[in-house]
């Protein structure tokens, strides 16, 4: 994990504003510049005249915001202009050996995004629903956020969890079966948590007790759960679809009044209970990790198990507890597929979300809130492409689908940089 130090340990951005740094890293300007070049090339090579219509309101809001109609190309070029200014500013800042404020990059991203949306939606008779874009993003992010939280807790305690995919899939499967049998999505959610914990238990048994290399256990558990769920799906669920594989879903649960605030309301306060729970769990995990004795112990065990053991913390038990809790959380994410998204289980329906969750966890640098934000970003990127396909954009759909992954690649390379996992991550502990 160590290589030449191209960037010193990240310090809080605000107070570091005036501080000079020793080694100059050109990663950020290169990343910003490359994205800008791509963006400008897109505008120049495929100009898209017309006007773009952004709808910000839904019919239920307290007051209506009229549909914004903007000329597409000028908005897009405005985005490019602001992007260029900020890139130049970043280059100058880096040359002066100063830290780049984070909000510059955020502004850069927002302007390029708005410009891109305007360009993509130009000339379309339909309104581009900003609310639909954002609320869909939140929904699509649900399994990723739960999964990444599971990863954060596990890895903070020193257990690498590649098996997030397995936990999601096992959760989805059990939720489908139990919710169909009982007719209650709550029972399904509970079953999903138990299933996630079961996978976590196997992970713990092999990784903690038998000290098998943790990546092996994770990878193998993924294959095992894919095999088991697909096997039972075709042998048991398909012949008994009515009985075992048709769930009652969680209804949408609008929060009175709050859901009628324009933009924010429908995005945040008109969702299913699993989404509200997600926000609660993110905050709870943050609080538990950083503000409770349990969290301190988990982090201690993940950073320096020997020291933790010396002061009397039971390393193995702490790791088991952390991994099991993480499993339950990932299971909740799995329940999303069968009691929120659609009402039945399908073979390998998680389709790699567990790996995206893993990426979100690393992207978020093993911090619950940052990981959740990274998860939301992935959800947004996925939904962006859904929305654009409705509006109809001139770019081949495959490139739209590819976009989130390309942007992530640039972001990880240019902005995030070297992520530092917990020091004892992946090591089995042997008491001496």
């Amino acid at each position: 994990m160590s290589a030449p130090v191209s960037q010193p340990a990240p310090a809080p951005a605000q107070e570091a504003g005036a501080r000079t740094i020793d080694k100059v890293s050109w990663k950020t300007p290169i990343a910003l510049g490359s994205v800008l070049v791509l963006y400008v090339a897109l505008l120049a090579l495929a100009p898209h005249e017309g006007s773009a219509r952004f709808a910000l309101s839904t019919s239920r809001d307290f007051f209506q915001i009229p549909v914004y109609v903007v000329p597409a190309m000028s908005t897009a070029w405005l985005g490019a202009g602001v992007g260029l200014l900020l890139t130049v500013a970043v280059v100058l800042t880096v040359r002066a050996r100063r830290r780049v404020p984070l909000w510059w990059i955020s502004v850069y991203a927002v302007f390029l995004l708005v410009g891109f949306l305007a360009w993509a939606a130009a000339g379309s008779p339909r309104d581009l629903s900003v609310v639909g874009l954002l609320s869909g993003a939140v929904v699509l992010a649900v399994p990723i956020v739960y999964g990444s939280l599971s990863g954060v807790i596990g890895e903070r305690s020193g257990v690498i969890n590649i098996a997030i995919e397995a936990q999601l899939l096992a959760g989805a499967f059990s939720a489908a079966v139990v919710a169909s049998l009982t007719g209650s999505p709550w029972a399904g959610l509970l079953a999903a948590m138990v299933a996630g914990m079961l996978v976590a238990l196997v992970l713990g048994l092999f990784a903690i007790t038998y000290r098998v290399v943790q990546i092996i256990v994770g990878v193998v558990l993924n294959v095992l759960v894919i095999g088991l769920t697909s096997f039972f799906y075709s042998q048991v669920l398909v012949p008994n679809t009515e009985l075992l594989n048709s769930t009652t879903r969680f209804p949408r649960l609008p929060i009175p009044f709050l859901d009628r605030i324009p933009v924010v309301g429908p995005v945040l306060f008109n969702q299913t209970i699993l989404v509200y729970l997600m926000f609660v769990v993110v905050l709870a995990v943050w609080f538990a990790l950083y503000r409770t004795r349990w969290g301190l112990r988990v982090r201690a065990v993940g950073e320096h198990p020997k020291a933790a053991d010396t002061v009397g913390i039971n390393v193995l038990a702490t790791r088991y507890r952390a991994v099991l809790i993480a499993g339950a959380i990932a299971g909740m994410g799995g329940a999303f597929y069968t009691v929120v998204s659609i009402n039945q289980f399908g073979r390998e329906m998680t389709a790699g979300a567990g790996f995206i969750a893993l990426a979100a966890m690393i992207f978020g640098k093993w911090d619950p809130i940052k990981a959740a934000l990274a998860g939301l970003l992935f959800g947004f990127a996925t939904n962006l492409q859904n929305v654009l396909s409705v509006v109809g954009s001139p770019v081949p759909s495959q490139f739209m689908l590819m976009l989130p992954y390309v942007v992530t690649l640039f972001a990880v390379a240019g902005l995030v940089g070297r992520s530092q996992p917990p020091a004892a991550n992946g090591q089995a502990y042997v008491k001496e």
Partner: protein
Amino acid sequence: MSGQENEDSTQQPPSNPLEEELKRVDAEAEPGLVEELEQERAREEAETVEVTGDRWRDAFRQIVSGSWTVALGAILLAVLAGSILIVATDEAVQEAASYFFARPQDTLKAVGEAIGGAYSALFRGAVYNYQADSFAAGIRSFTQTLNNATPLIAAGLGVALAFRAGLFNIGGQGQMLMAAVGAGWVGFGVTGLPFPLHLLLAMVAGMLAAALWAGIAGALKAFTGAHEVISTIMLNWIAFYLLSFFLATPGLMQAPGSANPRTPPIAESAQLPPLLGDRYPVHWGFVLALLAVAYVWWLLNRASLGFSYRAVGENPRAARVAGIDVEWSTVSVMLIAGALVGLAGVTQVLGTATTGFGEGIDSGIGFDAITVALLGGSQPVGVLFAGLLFGAFKAGGSAMQAAEGIPIEIVLVVQSLIVLFIAAPPLVRAIFRLPQPARRTATKRKSSSTKEMTA
């Protein structure tokens, strides 16, 4: 992160590699390394079973506490679990079990038939079909196994090599798809070249494309610190959509006059010829996979480049201090790993799917390769056997599905359980009540190897 511990627990190489390494290492240049190796050797020696005087008992102990017994036990356990799944979901068994207490022999008979049917179908599909008319027809199953094993071995080597350098290459899928793009494009797009030249060009194009694709992840890791797990996953998706764009666009890779996202067939002059004649599916790709095994073995055990990979994998900081260029190692190991995974894609396109391919050409091999590499203990020879085993399961699994109606996913369950059990020898020994080898030293070794992994 490397296969270090794995090496300890799953693969006990026949000769002592420590001795070889000790001889090779220059004591003047690397005194620390020599010391470490000597300590390791001392530990290894301490672990050998103590002599009790009774020769037969010693021999017995040595056999039952060896890694072969563990492997056998792991396979037994996994097959047992698979049998339970088959029996539990078998209709005839369920029917007979409803009157189990009246006539238990019916249930037992049904259980026997379900398991017997399943495993005999597996054997017929993977090794030798004894129901065929002649030996030549019966052995076709085995050549199918070899054919399935070809890409698994090649891709498994790519993953294993990256593992040894401390990199987790989950990008097998993307690398295979890019190899398919390169090899396919030359394979059906270029015309007029004679046979071996065209084939060679297509292979080079495919492997080069895959190598560069993996190299992106390596370069990002080396120069920006982007975690290879993220970048290889992202590159998988990018490659997938890139290929799907090429396949859907007339004039790029879509077969002319067709609306399907499929390529035209590969030109005759670019196909890998069949190895044993037209009646068997195995082609020269298998020989290439064997050559790749030999190359990776040579690279890791005999070449200084491979030594630097292993050093970086064990401890990048120490490797840097020893004067190894860690950045270049990271990039170059990903280039070679990508080329190896690319070989898997190339053999698929030019050998197996010569009638043209769609976007599912990787057929999950990129991910299977991770399991193959892990089962093989990240050792080239281990990967060879793991690839053969998984190839056999794949061939047998489809025969089982066709003959007995058992979903092929059961194979995934059995495969993953085998890897899981093999990775945890103490568990297998405990289940079969085999003696644990010298407990005290074993724990000591474990802790030392974890330390090495992290330092």
